[in-house]
């Protein structure tokens, strides 16, 4: 059963002519399957039995004419099967009517063999092209549908995993924070109980315990914070805030820490900065992150905190220090997770390496930009730029 058998239907009432056409077609290609009919009725029967790839149709038939058959044929939805009209009339009106009703071509009797051959070959070629494209379309659509189904399945799985992760984070949060609370409170009780009666050493080691509990608590916060920000971009409490006031407050809280290292904090605020939408706690977190780093990596000098209008409707907040600076090649890695730049000759800084990554998430969550500039050995400037959006 070879697939490339072309089925051709000849509807012609003159038996001699039918034989002639059949002969020509069979000679053209041994793979042609030629069927014949001599009337409108026989034509209808034939197409009900099996649809051909091409119909050669005589206009003048004994019962109903070829035009009638053609019109009905097209109305029944067989747009894609080429019909070639054959006629003895040769008249232009017939030709036009035929084409209007959906015939692909028109052949006049008496026929030239080469003519028939060429036109039949042409129509079959055209039909094959259409069939091939339909096939390609259909197969592509089927494939796409399956890919969609698979994608949906995978998404569902991901949602489940995400849910599991959330549950895990909650559990870990509780499990880690509970013992820390008990330890912290216990230390407080001991300290309270023995106040004034502790040796210098005892005080010292109690203090070290306290400091490290706090450090652990911060680490847990950092890690859990980051997880939260990664999975839920929502959760920003946006409200109109006075940026300068917010920053001023954060800087004031930092004064004792800076004073401990003999570092000066200087502020320079853009006057007349309007209140605009931001998440107060989160922006304070970013600024605290910057200030922490500035203090950590500076041994001298001042730290300048500036707000300034930038580029029309944005504001730039920068923290500039006179610290150890950052090498050029390390600048791009700064805001990636777990990156920590160790500096030659200086103590390795503590922390999770998540602070800047979290700050980046926060700033980008505000549709802002974060960045850093530095000259190694001279100092660094960390900045973020926020859009001055009024209202929520």
């Amino acid at each position: 059963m070879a697939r490339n058998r072309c089925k051709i239907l000849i509807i012609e009432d003159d038996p001699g002519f039918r034989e002639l056409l059949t002969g020509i077609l069979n000679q053209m290609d041994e793979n042609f399957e030629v069927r014949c009919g001599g009337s409108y009725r026989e034509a209808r029967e034939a197409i009900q039995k099996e649809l051909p790839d091409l119909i050669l149709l005589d206009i003048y038939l004994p019962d109903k004419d070829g035009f009638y058959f053609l019109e009905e044929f097209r109305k029944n939805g067989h747009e894609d099967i080429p019909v070639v009209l054959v006629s003895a009339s040769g008249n232009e009106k017939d030709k036009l009517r035929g084409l209007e009703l959906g015939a692909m071509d028109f052949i006049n009797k008496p026929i030239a063999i080469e003519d028939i051959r060429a036109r039949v070959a042409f129509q079959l070629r055209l039909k094959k092209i259409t069939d091939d494209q339909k096939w390609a379309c259909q197969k592509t659509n089927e494939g796409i549908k399956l890919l969609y189904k698979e994608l949906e399945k995978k998404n569902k799985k991901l949602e489940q995993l995400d849910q599991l992760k959330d549950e895990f984070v909650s559990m870990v949060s509780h499990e880690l924070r509970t013992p820390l609370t008990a330890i912290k409170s216990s230390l407080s009780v001991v300290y309270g109980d023995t106040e004034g009666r502790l040796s210098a050493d005892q005080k010292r080691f109690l203090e070290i315990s306290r400091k490290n509990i706090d450090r652990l608590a911060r680490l847990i916060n950092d890690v859990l914070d980051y997880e939260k920000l990664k999975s839920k971009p929502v959760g920003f409490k946006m409200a109109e805030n006075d940026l300068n006031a917010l920053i001023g407050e954060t800087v004031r809280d930092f004064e004792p820490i800076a004073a401990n290292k003999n570092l000066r904090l200087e502020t320079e605020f853009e006057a007349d900065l309007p209140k605009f939408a931001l998440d107060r706690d989160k922006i304070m977190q970013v600024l605290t992150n910057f200030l922490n780093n500035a203090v950590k990596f500076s041994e001298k000098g001042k730290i300048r905190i500036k707000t300034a209008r930038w580029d029309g409707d944005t504001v730039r907040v920068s923290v500039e220090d006179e610290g150890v600076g950052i090498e050029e090649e390390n600048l791009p890695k700064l805001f990636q997770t777990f990156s920590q730049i160790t500096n030659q000759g200086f103590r390795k800084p503590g922390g999770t390496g998540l602070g800047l990554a979290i700050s980046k998430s926060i700033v980008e969550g505000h549709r802002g930009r974060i960045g850093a500039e530095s000259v190694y050995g001279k100092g660094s400037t960390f900045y973020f730029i926020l859009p001055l959006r009024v209202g929520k």
Partner: protein
Amino acid sequence: MRNRPKVLIIDDSEADRILLHEAIKKAGLEVEVQTARSGEEGVKKANELRPEAIIVLDTLMPGMNGFEACKKIKEMDQDSKVILCTGVVDAVDAAKARAAGADDYCVKTDDYEAVVGAIKSLITS
């Protein structure tokens, strides 16, 4: 002559060969499965296995790709049945598959549902 139909899997990825074989087994198809690792090897094996082998070809392979192999196999044996399959469906590739004479063109999903379905329908026809 009740021989089990033969299925030849031609794919340069070992994982795909194995997973498709598993999927065929899981679907309970009564067939004998052979594999080839490249277009060239595939064409040779198809020649040995004919007639009536069902050939599953990966479109993307180094050396002789699926379309070329399909053409060669069809030239060699008009009655062969060839399925071209791909990780990513593409209308242009589908047209190429048709032009190369393929009997079917389908996507390789994780469960190989479409490929197994195509093999099934070629067995029953």
